[in-house]
Each structure stands twice: as structure tokens, then as C-alpha cells.
């Protein structure tokens, strides 16, 4: 009984060792620039499969309206939409794209974890051949295309071919509760010094200065990023995240971490900051726990529903009143990308062009999203929506956005997030924490 089993195992191992995992399936080809077609009507009946994660709030309606509009424009194209939540989509993407029948267009998150890994595996098609026809690069500010670019072989993000275009934008800024500010006799801060003064005033009057729920580790990265924007210039930060130079132990970086530690020590964050769930943040903030809340557009719809016009939003204030705005975290939303094995790349490219065109920007705005490009006619209806749109325009025009810090390495979300939790809890000093982060970063760069 035992012997056949051993033989069988040996045979299986021998057979399977012959092929490394992931070696199945041929390498797809990228079309030459001259060979691309832009006449969708001529393509005949086509079914375009699109995977997106636009399921929250008005996003679902946004996609439905735009897909219907594309079908109305090109009746020969039927769009088969598969929508999943963000984390479900990102986790099934690898399997779907390595399978035999991949979707044509997918929303692939930026960074080494998804987009660069897909490029490395040859699963995404560069948009370069369509540049002449659609001008994807010219459409967006340089800071935004950088984030959707990956160098050959998936080695580095931030340069190389463009692989995706986003319909929406994100900038991490500061929400404030207008009632609380009025009660404290404060105006929205015009400079960073004023902001810090406001935090001290709020604390002195028994308020929670900044609401933060940091159970999941990543939220603290937003606070840290805003602080880094004050101590470190945008170019240096971009170099750091894209692995082009600098270290997490550089003085200006440690200085920002030290500021975070000081804030925590002074009690600027609520008690139990590391134990509260991030997605629940709007509820306590709307109830008055916290004068300020640091975050991106993803909070806006919920806050607006709960607080009406009592919630407003600003970019992190500059060092001097009216001066150049400080750098902050943000960038394009999830980008739409074309899969390398799509049977209809020309139609898919036309779809990307449509989804980032003027009509799409209007629809995004009408359904409550923050459009990546200025919408030609639609305007946000709420005060906080208008704040966000104005902030996004400033951020794009002045090119102040720095990628999310966790794009630095595949494990950085855990490493840096965990370090920031320790710094907030006072278990490690700013310098010790940044040394831990640097160790992960250096190991990743050495391997790359």
C-alpha cells in the first residue's frame, strides 16, 4: 500500500517539476502604432467585457449611464459589465487575467501589488499605440499619468509606458466641522501654523482635534502623508515612493514622523485610535467627535448625507497664506486598463477614450464623483462637493499630488502602517519606526 503511493507521488512531482507555475499560455503581442483602428462602428458586433469596482454610492449609476451612452453611440458594441467591491476585484484579478478567457477592460489598482505585477506578467496592454489617435497622455497632467505608468517588465512604477486612465481623482485633504469651528471661534486655517494652532485650541477646549480610526493600519498613512507634504518637497517624496532616491530615515521624513508622535502624545487623536474601524469614521465625526478629519473624497458622500453643509473640505494649508500649496497624497482613481489578451483592443481603447472624455466627466460629476478632468458643464451640488472639485483643480494645476506611500514596496502598507501604529501608541520613537520602514524598503529595492 505504501509503495505505490510513494511511486505515485514521485511521478506527480516529476511531471509537475517540468513546468514552473504560471508558464502556461502564450505571450500576447502589442499592436504597432500604425496598425490600430479607431473606427468602432466598423468592428462588427462586439461584446466588451468590463470589470469594475464602481459599486458605492453614485458610482454604480455613473457606470450604468456611461455604458448605456457608449452602446447608444456604437450600437454594434454590447458591454458586459462585471462589478465587484474593490477588495474582491483586486483579489480575483490575478486569477481572471491568468485564465483562458480574460475580460477586455479591467480596473487595475496602481502600485507594485497589482498593476506592476500584471505588467510583469504581460497581462496588460500598454496604451502607447493609441497615443496618436487619442492623446491619453496629453489629456492628463504629468503627475497623474506617472502613477499609471510602469517601466518595461514591471520593474518600476512612475515611468515607462502608460497602462491605464482614470475617470476620477483623489486628493487627501482636511474635512472640518463648521459648527465646531464656530463654537471655538475659529476660521478655516489659511496656513499650516494656523492649523496647528487650531488643533491646540480645540484640545484646550476639550474637543478631539482630529478624528482618526486606525485599526486597519493604512489610515495613519494619510495623516503621515499630509505631515510629509509639509516637511518634504513633492519631488523628493515622489523619488522616495518610486524608488529613485532618498531614504525613509532622511531628516525631513523623521521630522514628519516625530510630528505625528507629538500629535498623538498631546492627545490630538481620539482615545482608542488604533482600535476603531476606519470605514465607520463618518458616524463619530458627524456626531461631533473631532473638529477635523483627514481623508479623501471617499468620505464626502457619507459626510454630506449626515452633516449637510456643516462639513467642508480644504487641501492641507500652505506654509504661508496664499503661498504655493503643500504637497499631499492623492492621484488618479482606479484606472481602466486593457488586457493584453483582449480580442478587441481597438474597441477597448475607444471605450477608454469615451470614459475619460468630456461627456463622461459630466456624468461623473452629476452622480457625485470627483471627475479627473474638469467637466464641461456639470457642477457639484453640495458645498463639500464644490470644495473637493476646487481642491482637485488646484491639485492638478499646481501638480502637488504625491502617490500613496504604500506604493513604495509590495509589503509597505503593512510595514509602514504597522510602524505608524507603533509611533502613535508611543511604543517606538519616530527614528526607530522609520528605521524599520527603511529596512523593508531597502530589501525591496535590492530585490527589484
Amino acid at each position, binding site marked *: 500500500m505504501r509503495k505505490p503511493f510513494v511511486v505515485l507521488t514521485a511521478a506527480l512531482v516529476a511531471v*509537475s517539476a517540468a513546468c514552473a507555475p*504560471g508558464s502556461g499560455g502564450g505571450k500576447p503581442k502589442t499592436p504597432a502604432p500604425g496598425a490600430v483602428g479607431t473606427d468602432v462602428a466598423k468592428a462588427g458586433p462586439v461584446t466588451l467585457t468590463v470589470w469594475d469596482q464602481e459599486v458605492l454610492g453614485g458610482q454604480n449609476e455613473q457606470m450604468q449611464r456611461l455604458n448605456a451612452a457608449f452602446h447608444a453611440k456604437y450600437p454594434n458594441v454590447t458591454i458586459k459589465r462585471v462589478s465587484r467591491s474593490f477588495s474582491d476585484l483586486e483579489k480575483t484579478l*490575478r486569477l481572471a487575467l491568468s485564465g483562458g478567457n480574460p475580460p477586455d477592460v479591467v480596473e487595475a489598482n496602481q502600485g507594485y501589488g497589482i498593476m506592476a505585477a500584471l505588467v510583469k506578467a504581460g497581462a496588460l496592454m500598454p496604451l502607447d499605440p493609441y497615443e496618436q489617435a487619442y492623446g491619453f497622455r496629453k489629456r492628463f497632467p504629468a503627475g497623474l499619468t506617472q502613477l499609471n505608468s510602469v517601466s518595461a517588465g514591471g520593474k518600476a512604477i512612475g515611468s515607462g509606458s502608460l497602462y491605464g486612465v482614470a475617470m476620477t481623482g483623489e486628493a487627501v485633504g482636511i474635512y472640518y466641522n463648521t459648527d465646531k469651528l464656530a463654537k471655538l471661534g475659529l476660521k478655516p486655517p489659511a496656513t499650516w501654523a494656523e492649523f496647528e494652532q487650531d488643533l491646540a485650541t480645540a484640545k484646550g477646549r476639550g474637543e478631539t482635534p482630529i478624528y482618526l480610526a486606525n485599526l486597519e493600519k493604512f489610515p495613519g498613512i494619510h495623516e503621515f502623508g499630509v505631515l510629509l507634504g509639509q516637511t518634504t518637497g513633492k519631488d523628493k517624496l515622489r523619488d522616495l515612493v518610486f524608488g529613485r532616491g532618498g531614504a525613509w530615515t532622511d531628516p525631513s521624513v523623521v521630522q514628519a514622523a516625530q510630528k505625528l508622535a507629538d500629535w498623538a502624545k498631546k492627545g490630538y487623536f481620539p482615545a*482608542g485610535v488604533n482600535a476603531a474601524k476606519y470605514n465607520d469614521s463618518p458616524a463619530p465625526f458627524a456626531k461631533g467627535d473631532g473638529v477635523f478629519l483627514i481623508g479623501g473624497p471617499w468620505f464626502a458622500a457619507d459626510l454630506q448625507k449626515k452633516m449637510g453643509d456643516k462639513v467642508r473640505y480644504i487641501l492641507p494649508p500652505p506654509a504661508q497664506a496664499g503661498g504655493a500649496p503643500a504637497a499631499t497624497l492623492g492621484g488618479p482613481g482606479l484606472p481602466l486598463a486593457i488586457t493584453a489578451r483582449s480580442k478587441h483592443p481597438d474597441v477597448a481603447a475607444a471605450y477608454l477614450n469615451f470614459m475619460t472624455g468630456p461627456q463622461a466627466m459630466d456624468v461623473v460629476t452629476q452622480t457625485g464623483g470627483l471627475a479627473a478632468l474638469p467637466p464641461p458643464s456639470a457642477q457639484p451640488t453640495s458645498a463639500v462637493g464644490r470644495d473637493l472639485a476646487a481642491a482637485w483643480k488646484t491639485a492638478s494645476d499646481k501638480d502637488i499630488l504625491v502617490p500613496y506611500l504604500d506604493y513604495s514596496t509590495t509589503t509597505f*502598507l503593512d510595514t509602514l502602517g504597522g510602524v505608524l501604529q507603533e509611533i502613535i501608541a508611543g511604543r517606538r520613537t519616530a527614528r526607530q519606526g522609520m528605521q524599520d520602514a527603511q529596512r523593508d524598503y531597502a530589501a525591496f529595492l535590492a530585490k527589484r
Partner: protein
Amino acid sequence: MKPPATRTRPAADRTQGRPAGARPPGEPRRVAYLYVLPALLVYAAFLLWPLLHGAYLSLFHWDGLSVGTWAGLGNYTQAISDPHLRGTFWHAAVLVFFYAVLPCCIAFLLVAVMSRSRPRGLTFFRTVLFLPQVVAMVAVAVAWQWIYSEHGPVNGTLRLVGLGGLARGWLGDFTWALPSVGLIGTWAEIGLAMVLFLAGVQKIPRELYEAARVDGAGAVREFFAVTLPGLRRELSVALTLTIIAALRNFDLIYLTTGGGPGDATRVPAYEVYNRTFNTGEVGLACAIGIMIAVVVFAVTAGVGRLVEGRS
């Protein structure tokens, strides 16, 4: 003590008075494999094959997408030498205490009390204590998250009795997060251990208790002399089930803390998920998975040997 009865009689005894070559009754026949085949096929397809394939993948550096490169035992050495990953196994050991040792001790105490005096409403208590086993882990996690939260009942009670200084966000505290998660496991596993022990106690002959009492044994003495030896098999089953539950614990960690704060509640099973889906280290994840399987096999065998005296 009697020597253990031998299962088979000596061969000479069996073949006596039979023509050579004929099979004695009860001797296995080859056709038996045919009977086993359907179940074996299902088992092989859904358990053995994935296990082997996992072991095979653990020998590669593979991101789940591009072509993997041969790693040999590199993933295993990494899992052992990386202090973060090694820490997860230590956390698992702590959870074994909370999932297996503690519930069994508490269940013994409950059973000892119940076997001496039959409290009223025994069925009711039994049902209530078993209930955590029935409730879905997601509901358990969400409920306990609230219980442990800054404004939850644990802190509320502490503040009520003047111990407000001890109040904290338990799941976000570096020291207390792991014990807090562990106690959820204790709460969930007590019922299982208790139901097993209660069933076992009913098998112990009353005469043994009476004899012990006649000999003047007190409650403690009676427990160690009669109840505990009589429950060896049940204890073995309970320990095996709860230890496995502790070692493969993923859902509770994923739902309550996500491994945080920092690395405080990282466990191997969580890392299997994390390395596969978040960081794209499929080979390493498989290596950790295989290591969990080996540890579970070893512990199961060890429990059988130590508690039941099997060899």
C-alpha cells in the same frame, strides 16, 4: 492493570484446520479497495491533490501571475528566519493556550460541578454554553469588536467600578490585542469541550463515584481519581479539535484586527492569505500553509499519544 488485549490472534491459530490458500474469515480482500475507491477519489481530488500541489508551489518564488522561479527550500528558510513570520507561530502558540488549554480547564470545572450536583435547568445552561459554536464567526467577530471597543461594555463596566484607568481600545492595544482575541476563542470553544465532557461523564459507572465516596474521597480527589481518567478519550478529542481551531485561526483575526496593531495578532493562517493575495508571494504562502499542516499533524499525533496513551 490488565495488559491490553491483542486485536488479532496468532497466525498459527487462525490457519488451523483449513486447506492451504483459503482465506480465513475477516481477512482483508482486494475487492475492498473497490469499495473505498469512490470516497478515495473525492478525497484525492479535493484534499490530497491540493495538498501536493501546495507543497509543490512552496518550492517556487511565484507571484501568482508571471512564470515562477525555482526556490528549493528557500521559502521555508525564509518563513523560519524572518522574525515577523516566526512571530506568527509564537502568536499561534499563545492562541493554543486560549483556544484549547483554557476552555478545557473551564469545561472540566463546569463538568465537575455538574456531575456532583445536578443543577436545575442543566439543559438550558448546556444549550447556552454550546451556542457560540453554532453562531457564525462573522457575527461573533462583529459582536466582540463592539464589546471590546472604546465605548463598549468591557470599558463601560471598568469605568462603572472605578477602574476607568484600565479602559482602553482592547483590540488596538499592542499588549492586550492578542489575549483579547484569544478570549473570544475561549468563549467559543468552552461549549464544545463541555458537551464532549458531559457526554463522557455519563458513561462513567456510578459505582466508581460511590466507591470513591465510600473511600472518603472529597470533590477534588474524586475528580482526579474518577472523572479525569474516565474522560481521557473525550479530552483527547476536545484538545485535538480546539488546537486545530487555534492553529488554523484566520477568520477571527481577519475580521477583528487584520493582524494589527503592528504585528501583534499576526498568525500563520492570516499570513497565508496575506502573502497570497496582498503581497503576491504565493510560494511563501504555500510554504507557511504546509508548515501549519505539519504542525497540526504533529500536535494531533502528540495529543493522541500523551492524553490517550496510544502509541
